[in-house]
């Protein structure tokens, strides 16, 4: 199951890159997110999975699609620079991914040692953490959202002229 979902995610990511049209990219990104949600479920993080789909899938990506529709964005045109940017970028990224993977894997081994996979009732536990240990960050994020709302409103409104 893991490999199915992982493959799905990777394919989605790749197609996000290869697709010319933003809305296709958006769709492939949605695929990635759903796959990730599946992975979360697999790891027993049900709540996070649900939130992942609701917020990412249901809100953020909808917003993207919405904006794409609104701006009626066409397929992107290639330019010499971007052609040029391809191979070296690929190299860089390969290196980056390799390093990240290797580094974390190295540490991951020790983590594995420390891991006792106990089934934790995630939702309740999460709620308790959020509202006990992380209550101030939580409040801060709510404030952040408020700011974001205001910012978006201000940005998107047309100047009355």
């Amino acid at each position, binding site marked *: *199951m893991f490999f199915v979902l992982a493959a799905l995610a990777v394919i989605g990511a790749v197609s996000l890159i290869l697709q010319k*049209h933003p*809305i*296709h990219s958006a*769709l492939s990104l*949605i695929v990635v997110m*759903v796959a990730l*949600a*599946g992975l979360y*479920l*697999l790891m*027993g993080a*049900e*709540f996070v*999975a*649900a*939130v992942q*789909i*609701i917020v990412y*899938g*249901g*809100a953020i990506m*909808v*917003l993207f*699609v*919405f904006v*794409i*529709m*609104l701006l009626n964005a066409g397929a992107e045109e290639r330019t010499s620079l971007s052609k040029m940017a391809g191979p070296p970028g690929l190299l860089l990224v390969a290196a980056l991914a390799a390093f990240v993977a290797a580094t974390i894997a190295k540490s991951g081994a020790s983590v594995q040692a420390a891991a006792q996979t106990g089934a934790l009732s995630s*939702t309740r536990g999460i709620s308790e953490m959020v509202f006990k240990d992380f209550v101030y960050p939580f409040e801060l994020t709510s404030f952040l959202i408020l700011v974001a709302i205001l910012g978006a409103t201000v940005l998107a409104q047309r100047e009355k002229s």
Partner: protein
Amino acid sequence: MHFLFATRDELFIAIAKIAVLLFIVLTVNAYLTWFERKVVAHIQSRWGPYRVGPHGLFQPLADGVKFFFKEDPTPSGVDRFVYYLAPLLALGLALTSIAIIPFGPEPLRLFGHDIYLGIAPPNLNIGILALFAITALGVYGVALAGWASNSKYPLLGGLRSSAQMVSYELTLTMSVVGVLLMAGSFNLRDIINAQAPLAGHPDRGMIAWNIWPQILGFFCFFTAAVAETNRVPFDLPEAEQELVAGFNTEYASFKFAMFFIAEYTSMITVSCLCTIMFFGGWLSPFPASWTLTHYLPSVILIPFGLWVILDGFRYETTLGRLVLPAVGTVITALGLVFIVFPQVNAFIQPPFWFISKVLLFLFVYVWMRGTLPRFRYDQLMAFGWKLLLPVSIMNVAITSFVILAKMQWGAK
């Protein structure tokens, strides 16, 4: 919760369940259309479908056939992939959401397996969340359809609907929070059981349902749900007068049918949700001590069946004189069966109540469509953001406060 099934049998059972549920849902869909047309017709003092089959009973079949064999043009300049994807998405998600609904409490023992009514496993801890997740994705069907068909009316329809859905989703979620707080769980079964009489407390029947404390929540929820399903009075995405048929203008025959079915399916889902959330799901409205009420199914079915039979005998067409009595006898027989075999009766109780409540809500849907005029778009948005959302949030605040107060001053 895990995806892999322990044994092959479970896999088979799951598949079987899915098949059965699909069949039921689709049939119900079909006859829902008939039901709707009939009711609306009578509201508008017409007869409604009457030609095809007795009382137009075969109308749905005819429609289905029509959908299959109609020409299916694909407009030029559409984004094919998305254009085909959209209806699939819509229908698929709509049907998936049904899968999470539980229809009855205890499992049915068949071939040495506990078969729960409902596809999702009973210990699905995030039931309601999953449901919301799926409905959230449901937006894409509409939006993409509107965008993909590369034509201005659908685009506008798609924009409208996605905006509308996203807006009302908030209310939908917030208004349920009150219920969740009272139940203390996302699991739909737990939510229903939370409305059941507690052990050692007097069974007070429907008094214990969430509808009473959560009346505000219910109001918000139902309204938002109607908006989510793009039904009257919130059916702007397909407002004929303004933009031909909204997002599905460019869709014909079967793909259109998909949207159609998806819409009705989501209607059913929402009705089920209302039932579960606020009306005690499969719980009987009467205290268990009123044993007589157990025979209500029969008491309703048998007279109805008899009436159908009589009506059938007096029907104009021969077909009618054949079909209606048959249907009537089947119904009557069912009723009799319930009386004769008490364990069957006992088993049938919860689903009976569940279904009857759902039917009630479906009727309300139709009723609204028959009576209410459509909103204007700005009205719609204002209504959603300025009235429903604040009210639902207020509801959450009040509920949580009351719960806290109970904890504090241990009121019973």
